[in-house]
């Protein structure tokens, strides 16, 4: 599992990508968000923090696996 970081989430975490080995015991999108928000409290201050699994935005109940490409999606601001 790789976790890609974009925009302000990259600035907060200080890296472009996290190795998923650390998160292999987490089973859902919601678990992953909680874990990351505990570890990087500044993530809690964002207007929103969505999680994409294999390039699709997913709900908290969505099950994640070690083969997934995961991305943190802070509030988008294109255009």
């Amino acid at each position, binding site marked *: 599992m790789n976790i*890609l970081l*974009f*925009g*302000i989430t990259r*600035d907060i975490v200080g890296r472009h990508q996290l190795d998923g080995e650390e998160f292999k015991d987490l089973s859902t999108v919601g678990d992953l968000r909680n874990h990351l928000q505990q570890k990087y409290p500044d993530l809690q*201050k*964002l*207007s929103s923090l969505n999680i*994409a699994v294999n*390039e*699709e935005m997913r709900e908290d109940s969505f099950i994640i696996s070690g083969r997934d490409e995961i*991305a943190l*999606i*802070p*509030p*988008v*601001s*294109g*255009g």
Partner: protein
Amino acid sequence: METILEISEHIDPSTVYSELSHPESGGICVFVGAVRGVTKKEKVTSLFFEAYKSMALKEMQKIADEAKEKWNLNKLVMKHAVGKKNIEEPVVIVGASSAHRDDCFKACRFLIDTLKENVPIWKKEFFENDEVWVSSHP
């Protein structure tokens, strides 16, 4: 429907008409978003755009498909720039062509409104003494 989707360092508004021109299209509507020198009364020096490119292109395709269902379109273009952009530089180009003008106007507005809501692209504003990821905080 022919659809052109692009995320790249440089996007060029001067070619969009030839891309949207079609023998059955009486109307072409295009919106270009550009870097504005002032935002909320503060002077902007430049913008920086970053995209989750593979996912952004998938989201753009979904928006294009939805537009195609809602309106009768012959061609559709959505392009977004990434990297550092200075004042007056184009950052986004969306447009559509259709037999009648009502369809291309409505589709064009839908394309830019929905792109801004759904596509994973992020903008950082650079001010003289500050830099801010737009909309990140409440």
